[in-house]
């Protein structure tokens, strides 16, 4: 699944070639009705060859290229499947049986990993493979998950919280953990991954089914169109007094059918679908079904957690605002002192700001009498006490929430400066978090802590808006803060002071209006919302509950991935639409090749002359045979030529719907009409030069 897994491309290619022959089995061919028609046509022309007088160079070539049309389509599918199969094989290797140290009444018992049942406990130590999926109930460990995620850096897993899940098959690098089994062998995350990779391609997605109906109906129509031609033509032959001059032999009629029916898209349809899932996989996202990928392209609303997705994980100090009459340096110094022992990211950012902006060097607290005061929920302050060496405190520096510091200063008989608290309100209004710094009874000023919006995220949201996707930010912050960050990040809407149920309610509300919702989540609390969302991306670091509720898993656990998922979904649909348009547009040129070839001699005034319909031969193709062959060969080769496009997908740009349509119509519609004229002509020249056709 990852960039780490190396593929042997020549082996993939070889396997695909073998598979494309295997797929000629009627059991496989019947799954794709458009190609099934080509397959039947190939058989028919083959049988036809052995009728008396039919074994000639032209008929043999037609037969040959019809078979190749089938093979090329099979090859496209096999190529697309190949990569997924290789992934699955890699994963299967990891599923080897290991032994596990099961805990029974506090004692360790050696068992086979596949004998572990749900709810049982086992122990895993540094260097061992985790025997089964589970939740850590005790301990903390670094785990190498590179086998699944491809990420070589180890990750930390610990009991409690949202990072408690471990996956069977991964390796513990340090420490010891006790794990409770959450999935038995055969139903593990790894098994599900293999199933996803292999199984996703089996069921057709709703759009694929609908497109298939359109393609099959077109095929039926073209069969009618072609099979009414012999009577139409014979009538004209009679009128012209030229019996048997119109080419209506079975190979010619079948060639015309194969050229007209949408073989290009028909042959590449399943490859496109598989490739879409594969593209997700290469971005380390696993989808449970093709349906989920398709739904991603339709998403109308993205629900995004503020922290980690829109903003960098934590608030950072950006400014010191001294109280009137206090020097900036003094405030910075006190703020740094109050934060030295504060290991939270906010605390560290204060120290860093003091150092970088005001040149205060980070210092070790040399004073042996300095005692750090940790933050508690009661005091809502932290800081440092300096003793005089006799157990008495001579100086106390604090930073904390405005209200708490104010009370603390008042208790010590200090004075409150209005200006400071005006600033505090101002910062709050701007969406920041104000911390007030006090040195004993003196208030020194305010630290401006700010949520830092990720770089480039605003542009991403603007792109999404152009694509018609609304973004909704979810945050536990109060209304004011949330509004400020929402404005800065450019999201369309936000839910402040959100509780887990709010997410679910919002999803339900949007779905009522027929909208499709995507969200990304990791915690157990997120599970119901993930299950309710149309596209629920669970992070791999998340809890087991979350991973099971979503229909996609992001192995990188990167919340911004949701945007890429949407793009891949859109790309998948676009590729289908583009190739359908291309396929149908191609037919125009094929008519101009084949119809004059069939009817060109009708009503000719002299033997060997050409009739009025020969004027349709606007490409000046050399002979009826070369014209028909060129069209059939083009039709077969275009499938191969478009395999890379099918696998890679049509280029996606975040633009408005009408602009994208205009662009793609120009490329695949107008281009689809014009391109084959050129290539059919070239093929015709080539066939004549090589004497393969008169």
């Amino acid at each position, binding site marked *: 699944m990852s960039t780490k897994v190396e593929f042997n491309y020549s082996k993939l290619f070889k396997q695909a070639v073998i598979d494309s022959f295997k797929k000629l089995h009627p059991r496989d061919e019947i799954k794709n009705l458009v190609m099934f028609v080509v397959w039947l046509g190939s058989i028919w022309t083959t049988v036809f060859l052995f009728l008396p007088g039919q074994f000639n160079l032209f008929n043999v070539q037609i037969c040959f290229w019809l078979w190749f049309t089938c093979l090329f389509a099979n090859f496209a599918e096999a190529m697309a499947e190949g990569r997924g199969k290789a992934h699955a094989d890699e994963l299967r290797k990891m599923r080897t049986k290991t032994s596990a140290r099961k805990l029974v009444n506090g004692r360790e018992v050696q068992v086979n990993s596949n004998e572990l049942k749900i709810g049982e406990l086992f122990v895993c130590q540094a260097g061992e493979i985790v025997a089964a999926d589970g939740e850590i109930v005790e301990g903390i460990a670094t785990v190498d998950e590179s086998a699944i995620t491809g990420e070589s850096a180890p990750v930390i897993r610990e009991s409690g919280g949202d990072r408690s899940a471990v996956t069977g098959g991964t390796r513990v690098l340090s420490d010891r953990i006790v794990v409770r089994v959450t999935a038995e062998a055969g139903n593990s995350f790894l098994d599900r991954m293999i199933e996803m990779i292999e199984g996703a391609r089996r069921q057709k997605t709703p759009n694929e089914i609908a497109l298939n109906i*359109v393609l099959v*109906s077109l095929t039926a129509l073209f069969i009618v169109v072609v099979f009414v031609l012999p009577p139409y033509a014979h009538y004209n032959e009679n*009128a012209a007094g030229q019996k048997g001059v119109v080419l209506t032999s079975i190979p010619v009629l079948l060639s015309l059918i194969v050229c007209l029916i949408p073989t290009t898209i028909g042959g590449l349809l399943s490859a496109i679908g598989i490739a879409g899932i594969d593209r997700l996989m290469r971005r380390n996202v696993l989808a449970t079904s093709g349906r989920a990928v398709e739904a991603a392209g339709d998403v109308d609303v993205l629900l995004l957690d503020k922290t980690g997705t829109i903003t960098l994980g934590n608030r950072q100090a950006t400014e010191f605002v001294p109280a009137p009459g206090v020097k900036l340096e003094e405030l910075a110094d006190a703020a740094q002192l109050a934060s030295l022992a504060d290991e939270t990211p906010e605390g560290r950012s204060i120290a860093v700001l003091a150092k970088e902006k005001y040149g205060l060097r980070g210092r070790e607290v040399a004073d042996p009498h300095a005692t750090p005061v940790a933050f508690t929920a009661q005091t809502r302050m932290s800081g440092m006490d300096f003793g005089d060496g006799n157990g008495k405190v001579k100086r106390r520096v604090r930073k904390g929430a405005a209200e708490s510091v104010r009370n603390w200063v008042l208790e010590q008989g200090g004075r409150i400066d209005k200006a400071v608290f005006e600033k505090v309100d101002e910062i709050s209004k701007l969406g920041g978090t104000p911390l007030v710094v006090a040195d004993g009874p003196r208030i020194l000023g305010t630290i401006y802590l700010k949520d830092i919006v990720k770089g480039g995220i605003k542009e991403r949201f603007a792109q999404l808006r152009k694509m018609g996707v609304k973004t909704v930010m979810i945050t536990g912050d109060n209304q004011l803060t949330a509004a400020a960050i929402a404005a800065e990040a450019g999201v369309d809407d936000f839910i402040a002071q959100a509780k887990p149920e709010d997410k679910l309610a919002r999803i339900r509300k949007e779905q009522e209006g*027929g909208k499709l919702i995507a969200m990304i989540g990791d915690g157990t609390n997120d599970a119901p919302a993930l299950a309710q969302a149309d596209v629920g991306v669970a992070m791999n670091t998340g809890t087991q509950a979350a991973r099971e509720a979503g229909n996609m898993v992001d192995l990188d656990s990167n919340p911004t991935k949701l945007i890429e998922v949407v793009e891949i979904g859109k790309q998948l649909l676009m590729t289908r639409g583009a190739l359908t348009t291309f396929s149908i547009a191609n037919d125009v040129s094929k008519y101009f090749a084949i119809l004059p070839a069939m*009817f060109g001699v009708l009503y000719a005034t002299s033997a060997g002359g050409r009739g009025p319909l020969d004027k349709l031969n606007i490409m000046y193709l050399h002979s009826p045979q070369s014209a028909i062959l060129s069209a059939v060969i083009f039709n077969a080769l275009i499938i191969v030529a478009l395999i890379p496009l099918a696998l890679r997908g049509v280029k996606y740009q975040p633009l408005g719907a009408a602009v994208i349509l205009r662009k793609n119509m120009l490329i695949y519609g107008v281009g689809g009409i014009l391109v084959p004229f050129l290539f059919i002509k070239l093929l015709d020249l080539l066939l004549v030069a090589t004497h393969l056709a008169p």
Partner: protein
Amino acid sequence: MKWNEIVQIVLFFGLGIALTPPVGRFMARVFKGEKTFLHPVLHPIEKIIYRLSGVDPDEEMTWLSYFWAVLLFATVGFAADMAIFMTQQWLPLNPQKLPNCSWHLAFMQAWSFTCNADWQSYTGETVMSYFSQIFAIMVHQFLSGASGLAVLVAVARALKRASIKTVGNFWTDLTRGLLYFVIPLSALWAIPLMWQGVPQTWKPYQTASLMEPYTTQVQKTDDKGNNVTTNIQLVVSSPKLGADGKPEMTNGVAVMVDVPQVDAKGVPIMTNMPVMVDAKVETQSIPVGPVASFESIKQLFTNGGGWYNVNSAHPFENPTPFTNFWEMLAIIVVPMAQVYMFGLLVGNKKHAWCLFNVMLALYALSFVVAWYCETRPNPVMAGAVPNMEGKEQRIGVMNSVLWATSCTAIDNGSVNSMHDSYQPLAGMMPLWNILIGEMLFGGIGCGMYCMLFHVLITVFIAGLMIGRTPEYLGKKLDAWCATWAVCGVLIPNAVALLPTAIALMLPATIGLSSLGNQGPHGFTEILYCFGEAANNNGSAFAGLNANTPFYNIAAGIVIWIGRFAPIISALAIVGRLASKKTVEPSAGTLPTHGWTFGLTLTGVIIIVAALTFFPALCLGPIVEHGLMTAARTF
């Protein structure tokens, strides 16, 4: 191109477009059940109708029961019509003592009129009694138009709905359409026609003595009334070939010679020729009847079935330049307005105008091409310009071609000239309009929902191209919608192509003996016949004698399929869409208006029709055009 022709064209299209919003708005009000200025008079009647028929006007139907109601209504009408045609001899209002119709003619005509096709394989004034013309034909010109309109109303209404399983009430839609719109408008439109001299009488046909009695040749009949024929060698007029094998020309015209035909073995090809005898003609029978009222409903509601055989080329149906203009305007006014009404009912006027423009562009294009082709010199006709064969002097080329393209773009089917006599490519344009599905405004109701299928196919392909599940008017399209949309397009196409092939494969005495012409033109006649039957047009290419058991039965069946396949498809689609939620459009949804969508839709319409019919057209009008320029005839 004369200035007065330009003025007429501008006036025609201008008035049509100008009338679209007010008429469309009125129609929307009627079908929404809102109050109109006609309510004080007609509302009590509407209530009485509901009470008498036991219909609850507010009862809702699912799409399927709506379809059954439409089908039941047409089937009852069919049975009644067939009975009238087959018993008209014994029924009142038959001053001409016309005999009963044959069962196959009755079968085909009954479907033809109840399906709004109004294709006539008989000669109106010599086959149908007043009773049949009024109670079987004219009644259905009202009813079939109104029921087509009702289906469109249900379609539009359902598209506007969300999370509702029903589409409306057929009987209510039918009653309201008839009462407030179809009948009043027809009455209004008939008045100027009567003023211009179109007959409106119940008197029998008038007999007049000829000023100049003349002698003519008629086919000899034996005692039993059968035609007498004689077997002679077939002679074909062909261009005389010079020594170089090329046709000899004098003044740019090929010299024609009679060539006795022999087969490959040199044996003369024999053919049956009628034996002709002289007959003196001293009097003339002048068929009359309540023509004016018939005319207005025929023109307004895309019926097109004429009182007389030659339809609006007849001086009693269409006596003056003004009636010609008035009747042409009648062809377009309601079909144009229905697009606007659709826009109002679905709540998306921009979309409706986009469809309107696409229809108008394709319609105008077909007219311009046909007009251009028809004014080119024809080498076979001694380079005659203008080509007046099959046209009325008082109507002229431009008005003939404009009528021909109008009545085929719009599913009307009336004619004021004979399309069969057009030059090949000019004659191809009416055929093209028919084959693309008659939706350039199209028939009452059916034109719009045939357009809907193409719109859905466009939305489907274009929707995928922008990377979203296709949506139409806020509803997501699924496999069900795709299935029915392609059915709606493909079934009429298939039933145009297949019976044509069957007619050609049958023994020549069944399929080909009806042909008025040989060669590619004969093929075009058959294709036109089944094309217009499959699309319920009813215009005749003429030339083909369709009053034979094979053509009557085949056309009757094709008309039936061509009527009800699109209706069930449209209702099935909207039935599904009505039950879905509506999604507000966003920047990511495909706009169903604007020139990008319009052009894409135009492309889809042309490509679908061209891919289906190009081979057939090649073997008909296109090859005929090539032969005509080489001065070859058959």
